[in-house]
């Protein structure tokens, strides 16, 4: 009858020595926290699914968005970097579980070493995520936003590859300056202007006959719809309003604004968990070094923080699938 709670009648029930379900108080509470946190994350990921089903015919293709790898320029390598990040996190999970295992055997030196590796893995992961964010915010090709808030991207007709707005747009001489607090109307300012105005893009497109426009709509094969030259010019002239570079919470060059919003929110919330996990790991790491758990004769604290760390890895497995794969 392992399901029944049967306290030893001689023990004091309320002084913390009682272990229902054969798990200590701290470990069980960590499990309950993990359940509630898992529900929070599933709330986020499922609302991402909601937005995606809502825009089922025009959602950005992740493989075309996350194509960058640090130190490699001019190549499109989808999935590679995020696969690396996933692997780093799995590895740090493994070193964590090895630390827990060494803790059971009361081997202080091994616990210290594996905890150290775990922290390093976590830092590499958070750093990679920061880089991924920076690349995403900076953007690469740029696009034009229409009156209806849709995104038009540009293609080279000969190679059918994406082409950056800055490669073909004209630069008119100083049409308009950014309004700052000290010019124009005092104490009023605006955010920095896009690199090109819509007229510069139209002029550039008219001058180079090999450029086509790609809309957000997906065709039967799951590719973005490419317009003919006439359609491209027409839609740009009649609907285009502004040039978008990179991503923020209001607009992004990849497509539906919600795509960037969910990216920032979900990977941000996960990154925050990784960060707090690193902080907890560091605290435990120093406790191991000064011998707190050696004196306590139990390394259970390492196990508890390990549970949290594995949970962070678990969440990433799902974020990886739903953001980058599906």
């Amino acid at each position, binding site marked *: 009858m*392992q*399901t029944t709670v049967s306290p030893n009648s001689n023990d004091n029930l309320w002084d913390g020595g009682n272990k229902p*379900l*054969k*798990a200590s108080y701290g470990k*069980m509470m960590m*499990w*309950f926290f*993990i*359940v509630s946190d898992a*529900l929070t994350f*599933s*709330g986020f990921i*499922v*609302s991402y*699914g*909601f*937005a*995606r*089903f*809502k*825009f*089922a*015919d025009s959602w950005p293709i992740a*493989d075309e968005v996350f194509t960058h790898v640090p130190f490699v320029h001019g190549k499109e390598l*989808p*999935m590679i970097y995020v*696969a690396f990040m*996933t*692997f780093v996190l*799995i*590895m740090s*999970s*493994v070193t*964590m*579980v*090895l630390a*827990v*295992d060494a803790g*059971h055997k009361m081997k202080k030196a091994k616990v210290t070493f594996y905890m150290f590796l775990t922290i390093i893995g976590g830092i590499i992961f958070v750093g990679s995520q920061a880089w991924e964010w920076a690349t995403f915010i900076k953007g690469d090709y740029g696009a034009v936003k*229409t*009156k*209806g*808030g*849709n995104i038009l991207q540009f293609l080279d007709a000969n190679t059918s590859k994406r082409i950056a707005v800055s490669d073909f747009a004209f630069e008119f001489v100083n049409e308009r300056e950014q309004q700052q607090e000290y010019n124009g109307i005092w104490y009023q300012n605006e955010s920095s202007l896009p690199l090109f105005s819509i007229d510069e893009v139209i002029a550039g497109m008219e001058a180079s006959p090999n450029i086509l426009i790609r809309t957000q709509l997906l065709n039967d*094969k799951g590719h973005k719809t490419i317009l003919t030259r006439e359609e491209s010019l027409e839609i740009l002239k009649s609907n285009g309003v502004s040039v978008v570079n990179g991503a923020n919470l209001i607009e992004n060059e990849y497509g539906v604004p919600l795509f960037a919003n969910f990216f920032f929110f979900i990977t941000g919330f996960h990154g925050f968990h990784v960060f707090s996990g690193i902080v907890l790991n560091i605290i435990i790491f120093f406790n191991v070094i000064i011998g707190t758990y050696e004196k306590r004769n139990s390394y259970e604290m390492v*196990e508890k923080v*390990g*549970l949290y760390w*594995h*949970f962070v*890895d*678990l969440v990433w*497995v*799902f974020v*990886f*699938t739903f953001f*980058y*794969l*599906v």
Partner: protein
Amino acid sequence: MADHTHKLEIFRGLIKFKSNTQKIVGVLILLSIVTLIEVVLGIYKPTILNEYFLNLKLLNWIFIILTIVKAYYITWDFMHMRDETSILRRIVVWTAVFLILYLTFILIQEGGYIFDVFDDTSNYIKKDF
């Protein structure tokens, strides 16, 4: 796990490990292989897998199933769920699974409905202009 014993077999006893460390390495290899399959499928996206099954592409079914496989091994072996009492396991896993299934059903269903409203050919709602 107060007595520090681990169940050392995975795949329902198909693979047995001699020590806990060995089991960890075994699970690491398994997780790496699954991730590798996911990444390769994600890069090449074979066209055969574009068929739909229950409103979802076969490829996406594969991704989701592989994800659940990975989640299972992380929880069972890294988080030592395999060594906990069955009731603790049920409290944690069933609560989460039921609530998540319910939430998923409601929100995905609703998202699909809103898509149909937007997609309505009678053009009450215009989103491309």
